[in-house]
């Protein structure tokens, strides 16, 4: 953090006009509710862009529909605010065409785990190089208080006036059960330092990084995460040389720390399971999983003449020769 401020102030002091500053990543003023956890995620992403000096024109935030999906409008980069549930396949199309672009996906629990659930598991399996942020506030906000797949059992909403009956979907455990996973983490919006470090590692990972972020909805689920906010002991903070830095300044605030090796998938799955404590940190990473775009898109940047020649070769296969 201080390192980052140093760098920024240095660049300002040097009048390095080529360096990007936080302001370069600011878009429209957010219309989220006061106290909405999405604001914290937005702040972390803007900081990440500045820290990594991502050219705004080379960065695309892709989203679906929902409160979380408004995020691209509040960035100063390119953004694609598309259809409900369809952010992931749009992002994949962008990445296959333009591997040079930095692609982020912002998706809510309804967007990712309900209407877009099919795309979720396949996006994870494709493992294209992008950072996927699940803003999980456990309720539908934009459509005004309906039950979400991740809502706790018994939650009273407009569509479950007598309380929801189903067990919630555990997005983290579900992702860790998918094939070809390469990076899975969990963060919470109310711990900005931890959130930033996790997003930063997710961005640095080459492959699809999936970050489940528990996000407060002060309007429809006020106090829902208070059990964790007010009692840091309920958070099991994961640290490892390949995960969150064991020496990070915030570590000492969490008595229930665990040294977790992110290559240990079995333990990651145990940590993701519902328990007394909420696991926060890098649960799993495997840098060796190949990216879809590397496997399937071997662009050779052929000159037009070569493409025309390839077409002629195909024509040859179907040619009726005018022979005697």
């Amino acid at each position, binding site marked *: 953090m201080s390192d980052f401020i140093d760098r920024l102030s240095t660049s300002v002091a040097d009048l390095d006009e080529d360096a990007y500053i936080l302001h370069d990543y600011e878009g429209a003023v957010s219309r989220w509710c006061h106290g909405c956890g999405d604001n914290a995620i937005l702040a972390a992403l803007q900081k990440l862009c500045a820290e990594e000096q991502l050219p705004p024109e080379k960065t695309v935030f892709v989203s679906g529909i929902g409160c979380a999906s408004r995020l691209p409008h509040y960035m100063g980069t390119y953004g694609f605010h598309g*259809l409900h549930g369809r952010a992931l396949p*749009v992002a994949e*199309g962008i990445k296959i*065409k333009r591997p040079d*672009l930095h692609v982020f996906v912002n998706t809510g629990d309804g967007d990712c785990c309900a209407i877009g659930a*099919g*795309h979720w598991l*396949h996006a994870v399996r494709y493992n294209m190089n992008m950072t996927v942020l699940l803003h999980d506030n456990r309720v539908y906000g934009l459509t005004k208080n309906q039950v979400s797949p991740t809502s706790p059992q018994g939650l009273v909403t407009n569509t479950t006036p007598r309380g929801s009956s189903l067990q919630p979907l555990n997005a983290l455990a579900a992702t860790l059960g998918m094939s070809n996973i390469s990076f899975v983490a969990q963060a919470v919006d109310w711990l900005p330092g931890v959130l930033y470090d996790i997003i930063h590692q997710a961005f640095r990972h080459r492959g699809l990084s999936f970050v489940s972020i528990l996000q407060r909805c002060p309007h429809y689920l006020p106090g829902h995460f208070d059990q964790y906010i007010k009692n840091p002991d309920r958070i099991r903070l994961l640290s490892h040389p390949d995960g969150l830095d064991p020496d990070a300044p915030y570590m000492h605030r969490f008595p229930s720390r665990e040294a977790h090796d992110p290559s240990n998938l079995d333990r990651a799955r145990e940590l993701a399971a519902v328990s007394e404590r909420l696991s926060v940190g890098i649960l799993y990473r495997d840098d060796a999983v190949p990216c879809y775009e590397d496997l399937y898109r071997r662009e*050779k940047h052929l000159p037009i003449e070569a493409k025309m020649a390839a077409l002629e070769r195909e024509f040859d296969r179907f040619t009726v020769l005018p022979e005697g």
Partner: protein
Amino acid sequence: MDNLNIRQSEFPAQSATEHQGPLAPAAPLQLREHIIEVISDSGEGAQKCGQSFASIAAKMGNGIWTVEIIPAEIEPPPRSIAGASGNRIRIGSHRVTNGGDEADLAVAFNEQVLRGRLQAGALRRGGIILLENKWRFHRDPDIVAAYTSTYDEVIRDGYRVYEIPMEQICFQYTSNPALGKNMFVLGMLSAIYSMDLKLGRQQVAFTFRTKSEDVVDRNVQLLEAGYTWARESLDLGFKIPGSRTKKTQLVMNGNTALALGIMASGMEVCAMYPITPATSAAHYLSEIFEHVDGIVHQAEDEIAACAFAIGASYAGKCAVTITSGPGMSLKQELIGLAAMAEVPLVVINVQRGGPSTGQPTKVEQGDLLQAIFGAHGDAPRVVLAAANIEDCFYLAITARHIAETFNLPVVLLSDANLATAQQLFVRPQPKQEWYAVASDQTEIPKGEQPYEWDDRTGLRRRFIPGQPGGMHTLTGLAHDRASRVAYDPEINEEGIRYRSRKLASFQKTLATPTVYGDPSGDLLIVGWGSTKGVIEEAVDRARADGSAVSSLHLTYLQPMASGIGEILKRFAQVMTVEISWSDSLDDAFVSVDNRRYSNLAWLLRARYLMDVDCWSEVKGQPLKPGSVVQIIRRKLETGRPHV
């Protein structure tokens, strides 16, 4: 060899044919055209045989059109009426534009698939049947009975039947005649139709190019055996003189042409989900696309395929998604997004029978209205349809060009008939401009906005990620010129107005289509898509009989070119002929107040305020020119096309 048992039915005197036999092979009968069907159980290779025969005929200089005969199941039970699999090949001295009426000659690998074709009315009474006769000697008496009863029936009905011990002869060359019989038949047909055996050998070598030399040799032997056997044992010999064109031609089916069109269009991303009958285009494209830096992405579903294509388009060159009816329905919300956010997109719909799962392998033209209107709200897009194999190639290139120029979705319609039909067309000359330059990555001048609609044309410069100064968030919400979410009602209407305006400005680039036949008369038949060849042939025949009928074919269905209304008004009656549902006024409860018209008829009635009639059928088969001639006559005589 003594039980080869070649029997030939007596040629019934009452079946009047153009080519009465017996004929000496040395003096083949000259024909203008013939329709041949090769039919077998699925997996016995009749399709490969038929396609190869068509290619040989094309190389002989004949006009050809093939129609695949496809059972709905991958492995239907053997010897079943519904399991007929194979190919119809229409060969002519002239250009052939459709599959024609009834077949003149059929080769059947068993009597049940033959029954299937007879029931479908596919064979001409008195026509020639070459029938595998091994069933007559089968161990199972039920099979023998089924065979002999069918045989007796077709003899009684006046067909000229040749029983042929195909499998028995093939045993001399292969231990598994089920895998080689089709090449024996290819040889037989080559002899009957006086084809050059050298071309047959080349064709076999091409067909089995990925197989071992042994396989090629064995199949060439079978081909030659069939050829020799037919020459020595059959009194059939025809010659359909070809005409050599100066221009080199290609022969392929519509899906192959679509794949080549995509390859030639400069597009680099094709996203799809397997669906019949579109998928074979993606099979071939998957094989060739990387030679032009392209990729075929098989997505997890139809929606994802469309979203993937839109994402790729947004980030650069226009991309394409290819599908059939049900997939088209699923993509509509995303087509609406592409229209709203003005992202270029090409959607290819190889139509099949609907609604719902319908008839996946059969032809229908029921998707025109959904192609034009099938999304919520006002989501303008351009819709064009291929009439033949050549169109499948060129319109894929045109579609990309329109999509990128006007920044909107373009729907290209083909159908199950074109998908598998083979036809000749002049070999295209690839052009540099088909591969238009890569995405614009230059800096956007300060102050320029992502939706600066031109007041007249509605066009605007598309900002592509990577362009400095162009940063904005594209959105499917109503938005202003800066792509900010619009909360002002005036802004919503402004965006809709300009997106609609683009269709009007595009329409100004379209030429008025030309009338086939006289420019005025008693009846104008209007059609679109793959029925063009059938309708024009029917018009030719009806005109030869003295009817004042013409036809008009529409390639651009949305928007339609100027001048069409004036053409329609020059005819006393106007009627569309389509392969989609329409009510008949003769049916119970149906009246002018509730009649449901076929797709194009609705459009013409709405736009030109004329009482446009329609005739259509949904039998899943290509139209026959003979049927259309009858419809024309009836319409002219009674004012109504239906019986």
